[in-house]
């Protein structure tokens, strides 16, 4: 049975695309020396699962390097996954060869961020739009021409643009041409990679509205990749927040924006400047940078920056003490706490360090027990100028002993808004899981 015959009919609202355990790891170096020194593995996408229903818009949001574009390309089998499965209309894409998948591509189209470079400057607009139809052997020549002109009208351009070249158009118009091209084969799924981020704000709104109108008319399913949470709130039905190759949180739009549960989502939403001077407030800013996807943090990948890291079971500190310990940990890791050593090599009496640490981080008294012992040891290392030991100690004992580091969180909790589930990858919600 050929692939096209195997395609199931999917009604609106039924699952169109099913993604399970999808993983993509890259070898960071495949050159000659990699064989000698070994190569590192970049864990771009790691064990991601979700479904997309026909007619809905799902957005993948996240900051640069979070793996959202890799995920989309892996779903489309433009990149071969390392592990996991993708099923499109009941056909297992991951089990098929590229040659077998090829006829399916007319049902899965993609538009790219940069309207400048995604249109061939040597081809006329008409040819550009006809190209995918030609590739899939659809319609006769005259029919294709007529359809291309019709599509131009659908995306609110003029039929006469058929004979013009891309350079004659503005960014917003070019993105419409891209849309027309993607629609040409009457696909079910259109993957949009940052569809409006290269456009000016006023033009963004035009293109977003057109995308929405077209979806209503033709029942397209969109998978939108974006870093812009405002744009996503406007067009998406459901939103998946990605961080360093994992999905941190996935919920219906209203639920995600009004009831975010993952500390990363909360930080992300908190960080967006709101276009209203009356809603200025003290924002909790996220500290530090995104870690490297080579050897990413164990357990929850956000834990190294998480303001709500769960304390290791053996510590048993009050919330206040734990937050002071966290502050101390960060200071040691970032070496923002620098004592005045007398000269190049000499250390300091440990008493001076402990006094300074107590004054700066534990004015209410240092915690006793296990945590106190660790802090003592850290102070001794700092006094001896053994910074690496001190850093290792706080990292291992305070961070890596946490459940956040030892287990990867994956929970589904009841949603407050809407009807869907709310997936949240955070151990804070382990007791609410359904």
């Amino acid at each position, binding site marked *: 049975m050929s692939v096209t015959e195997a395609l199931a009919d999917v009604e609106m609202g039924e699952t169109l695309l099913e993604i399970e355990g999808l993983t993509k790891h890259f070898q960071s170096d495949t050159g000659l020396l990699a064989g000698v020194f070994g190569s590192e593995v970049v864990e771009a996408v790691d064990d991601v699962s979700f479904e997309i229903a026909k007619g809905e818009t799902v957005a993948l949001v996240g900051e640069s390097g979070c793996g959202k574009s890799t995920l989309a390309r892996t779903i489309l089998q433009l990149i071969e996954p390392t592990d996991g499965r993708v099923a499109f209309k009941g056909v297992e894409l991951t089990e098929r060869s590229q040659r077998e998948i090829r006829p399916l591509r007319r049902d899965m189209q993609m538009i790219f961020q940069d309207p400048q470079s995604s249109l061939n400057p040597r081809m006329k607009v008409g040819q550009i739009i006809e190209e995918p139809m030609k590739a899939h052997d659809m319609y006769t020549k005259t029919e294709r021409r007529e359809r291309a002109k019709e599509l131009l009208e659908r995306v609110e351009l003029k039929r006469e643009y058929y004979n013009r070249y891309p350079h004659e158009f503005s960014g917003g118009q070019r993105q419409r041409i891209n849309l027309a091209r993607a629609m040409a084969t009457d696909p079910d799924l259109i993957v949009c990679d940052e569809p409006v981020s290269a456009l000016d704000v006023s033009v963004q709104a035009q293109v977003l509205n057109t995308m929405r109108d077209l979806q209503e008319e033709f029942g397209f399913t969109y998978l939108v990749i974006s870093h*812009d*949470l405002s744009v996503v*709130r*406007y067009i998406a039905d459901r939103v998946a927040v990605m961080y360093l190759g994992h999905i941190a949180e996935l919920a219906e739009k209203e639920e995600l924006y009004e009831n975010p549960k993952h500390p990363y989502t909360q930080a992300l939403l908190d960080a967006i400047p709101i276009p209203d001077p*009356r809603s200025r407030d003290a924002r909790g800013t996220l500290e530090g940078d995104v870690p490297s996807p080579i050897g990413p943090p164990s357990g929850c990948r956000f834990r190294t920056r998480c303001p709500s890291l769960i304390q290791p079971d053996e510590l048993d500190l009050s919330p206040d003490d734990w937050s002071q310990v966290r502050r101390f940990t960060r200071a040691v890791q970032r070496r923002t706490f620098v004592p005045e050593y007398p000269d190049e090599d000499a250390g300091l009496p440990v008493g001076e360090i402990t006094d300074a640490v107590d004054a700066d981080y534990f004015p209410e008294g240092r915690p006793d027990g296990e945590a106190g012992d660790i802090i003592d040891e850290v102070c001794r290392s700092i006094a001896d100028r053994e910074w690496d030991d001190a850093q290792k100690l706080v990292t291992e004992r305070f961070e890596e002993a946490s459940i956040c580091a030892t287990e990867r969180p994956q929970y589904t909790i009841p949603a407050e808004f809407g009807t869907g589930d709310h997936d949240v990858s955070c151990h804070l919600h382990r007791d609410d899981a359904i």
Partner: protein
Amino acid sequence: MSDTILEVTDLKTQFYTERGVVRAVDGVSFDVKQGEIVGLVGESGAGKSVTTSSVLRLIEEPGEVVGGEVDYMGRTIVGFEDTGEELVPRDEMLTEAQMRDQIRGNEIAIIFQDPMESLNPVYTVGGQVKEFIELNRDLSGEEAKEEAIEMLRRVGIPEAAERYGDYPHEFSGGMRQRVLIAMALGCRPNLIIADEPTTALDVTVEGQILELVNDLQAEFGTSFIWVTHDMGVVAEICDRVNVMYLGQIVEQGPVDEIFHDTQHPYTEALLNSIPRPDRTVDDLEPIEGTMPSARSPPSGCRFHPRCPDAREPCREIEPAFEQVAETADGAAHRASCLKHEEVGYWEAEPLEVEVEK
């Protein structure tokens, strides 16, 4: 707070191209007071960056500042006199050498959007910050180095002393932008021009930088001109705002008035066209059409072909840039729209807006 340090009056900058003269900045006036953050907002092509480059006299061939005044604390950065035939620079206008030695860097510093372009890839990060500080302040090599490390630490570079010797490529985008801010601040300038400094950054990093700017401004009393297209950033940090469209400022006022007592249809349209992060909007109202070329701007009000409120006179009469509304603290709130003038706008018929998409 109320001392004016920079006053720009009727500034005009043109570019001479093969296809004609581009009036990139066409009669722009605004001022900056000590310790405030002034926003310059608009879409691409509005003339924001040309305005700031003109203020620092960084315009190069084929461009030229052709008119207007720029006064910085009594010193004339741009000034012309009319000889009857043409405009020539006045004698007291600072020379190129004076601009270099007395203004750029130590009085007015500029931070650009792309930190990779602004840092030299073959010198260490610390070395570049140190050199900048040495050039602009009377500090010896060792002192300058200490100051450089201190500034890097202040802008939140972890392990600043250890990373002093790293090269720019070893820093992330956000950290590079911090380095540029450290550089600018290290020279203790009075005014920093920040040209879309957070546009290329992720939102959490942008949040860190905005926080940093707030802290540093409170501590050093530095003034900022913040160039951006992002109304969210404007709302977050600016005290006063200038909205630019096609080479001109169309509305100017305190930030709260710009958002809540909007007087120009372009500002209004801009605010209605942005998706909101804080609430679900059912329908965005885009601004129809695209910004026309600055080579042949529309007659009358430059926004009239796209303006939802345009009426017959808007095609003919160029609106004056005038005080249009009272503000809470007496600061000026100006806008250039015929609605605020006695030219028969209200009696006229609405224009049929016919635009290409």
